[in-house]
């Protein structure tokens, strides 16, 4: 069964549809919803209610995770604006950015084989984070003036950073694993 929670995630959390979100408010509203619908509230209820409570909380969780993440929220907004999107296969069409991605890939490789790889990688991930923050500001601007084409390109860039950050993290984990 699908619950007819037809409201979109912004409506569910009673937020205006837009890129900027007050994270503190989001967290508080999330808690308010959770404390009403979490299956623990239905420990003594009938199987059916327990099942529905699981489905509802799953929906609330999904909405929360989407709104909380800068990347996912950007994808979601584009999706609500009917912008076709495949984050898996599409990449940014900005030529300059493509060159930058290659440089960054090289940097990750270099850091991984440096003398103090863990520190290098830590430094690199901090830099990546700064770049990401700039992109987030950019997306916010583009979305607010409804330049959706540009916003989509920025979202794809963000996606690239997400992947690269994960790569760095995997490398860090591998290196730490060797220490255990």
């Amino acid at each position, binding site marked *: 069964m699908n619950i007819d929670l037809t409201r979109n995630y912004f409506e569910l959390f009673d937020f205006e549809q837009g890129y900027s979100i007050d994270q503190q408010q989001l967290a508080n509203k999330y808690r308010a919803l959770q404390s009403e619908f979490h299956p623990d509230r239905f420990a*003594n209820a009938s199987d059916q209610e327990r099942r529905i409570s699981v489905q509802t909380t799953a929906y609330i969780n999904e909405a929360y995770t989407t709104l909380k993440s800068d990347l996912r929220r950007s994808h979601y907004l584009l999706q609500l604006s009917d912008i076709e999107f495949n984050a898996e296969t599409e990449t940014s069409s900005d030529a300059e950015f493509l060159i930058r991605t290659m440089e960054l890939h090289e940097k990750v490789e270099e850091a991984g084989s440096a003398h103090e790889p863990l520190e290098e990688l830590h430094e690199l991930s901090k830099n990546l984070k700064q770049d990401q923050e700039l992109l987030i500001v950019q997306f916010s601007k583009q979305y607010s003036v409804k330049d959706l084409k540009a916003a989509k390109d920025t979202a794809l860039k963000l996606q690239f950073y997400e992947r690269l950050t994960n790569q760095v993290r995997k490398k860090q984990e591998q290196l730490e694993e060797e220490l255990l």
Partner: protein
Amino acid sequence: MALLQISEPGQSTAPHEHRFAAGIDLGTTNSLVATVRSGVAETLADKKGNHILPSVVRYEKNEIIVGEEALVHATTDPLNTLASVKRIMGRSVNDLATLQGYLPYKFEDYESAVPRIETVAGSVTAIEVSAEILKSLRERTEASLGGELVGVVITVPAYFDDAQRQATKDAAKLAGLNVFRLLNEPTAAAVAYGLDQQAEGVTAIYDLGGGTFDISILKLTKGVFQVLSTGGDTALGGDDFDREIAAWILDQAELNINEDHQMMRRVMQEARRVKEELSDMDQVSINVQLNDKHDFQTKLSRQQFEHLIEKHIDKTIAWCRKTLREAEIEVDDVQNIVMVGGSTRTPYVREKVAEFFGNPPLTDIDPDKVVAIGAAQQADKLAGNNPDEEMLLLDVLPLSLGIETMGELVEKIIPRNTVIPVTMAQKFTTFKDGQTAMRVHVLQGEREKVADCRSLATFDLTDIPAMVAGAAHILVTFQVDADGLLSVSAEEQSSGTRASVEVKPSYGLSDSEIESMLKDSFSNAQQDMQLRMLAEQQVEADRVLEALRSALDKDGELLSADELAKIEQAKSVLLNTRQGDDDEKIKQAIKNLENESEEFIARRMNRSVQQVMKGHKVEEFE
């Protein structure tokens, strides 16, 4: 607010009575049960005054013995005296190879993927063995409380996968226990210290038991507990300390006793005593009787001991570091460190942990009991004994869930550390013209290859309408509930047909196997069984009816007259059937009523979401 807030099924019989609930720490080596009495959570002792129940079950021809009395036979009759079965809960026959060192049992050659251990009383699964431990704890609790338990909270390691959690729940079912919730052990420990009542903060739970080490990072924000990350080593613990001391003694005595198990046991026992005494003393005398009747004597200082065990503790600290990074938490952000497990009594462990976190750990509650105590507190809340108390423990999925794709690779569908419950849908399509069936293989784990992950189940999707290749869109929905257990449903979207899903658990027991075990366990008391099933269905019928009554009272206007009539019809059928003594019929009638009211409940759920948001003033969210 009330969804269908009946939440107190006791109502129909005795509304104000305290409802008995218990928390159970079902451990690898030891198990405990605790309950809340007069507002205080405490572990319960057996008739002899022992709180700790060794997780050991002995099978004799006509008798099953659990705990201390079973343990005394562990060395004389190891094949029928089963210990540490938690290590094989939810494990397949194939997994056993890696565990062989730990488990001296004889495994039956058997078709089923669930390993069966041969004993004089026939072969048993780990689930049945665990059920005996749970039964023993249940009897202890009910004798002590003087009434039947309405439900329990059972703790499991945070990293337990779906199969292991399911196995634990199955064991509880066999033991006749209603499980409110499977709670992660670290979360239970934090609850015991009342950290869930604090405003905010990050807590590290350092759990060093006899044979396992776990570190968990929990985050608390206004009553919500979140497991951010977990790590650990399933082959690291206080037993390693014993082994280090034993090896040192053998080295000092210049003994080589490879094959002499008797001697080895004596040395190990001595090592254990020395370890425990070194917690309070700076130096301990060692005395081991050799086979030539001479005594070997020496002394071990605390400093020497610390040197021996340092590498093991360092390993735990490395895990702490790694797990913190996974949680994206800096060590300075950790406010509380909770110590769990008997091995945290070793002062050097505490010292090293305090040094790493820059903060002394919490040690006030007995580290052996702390998990059971926390579980008892949560069980008491879930039983509805403190309706006013805010409680919300959110957990995350411990290991990623994925499906097999081309090339024996695993594609992740729900990544680890996702807050549960969670639902994720995945689209599949047919690749052949007229294809009407499809097999989906579900796995759990972090690695990329199928062989490196744990196979959970295969699902056969059948009854897919025949179409050209790629035309059928099958939406498979994976749902993980609050206990971390997975269920799957599927729908063909273009035609709207529900594809049927048949679950073949890779190493769990199928529902029918559980059913037949339940029947076996009642086989000598057919009538009891019948009565029990009837009573269960009657209770469930009352719950459903009561829930519906209060829901209709509040929100009846959400229904059209026609819809209401249909529900009323189904309701009166159930009311009538409930008076009879046919549990199958009652079950049917419940199902029927549930189907009729499903849409109504969904509408109410929707409405209450709006109310939750509206009911709060904006300031509350700031």
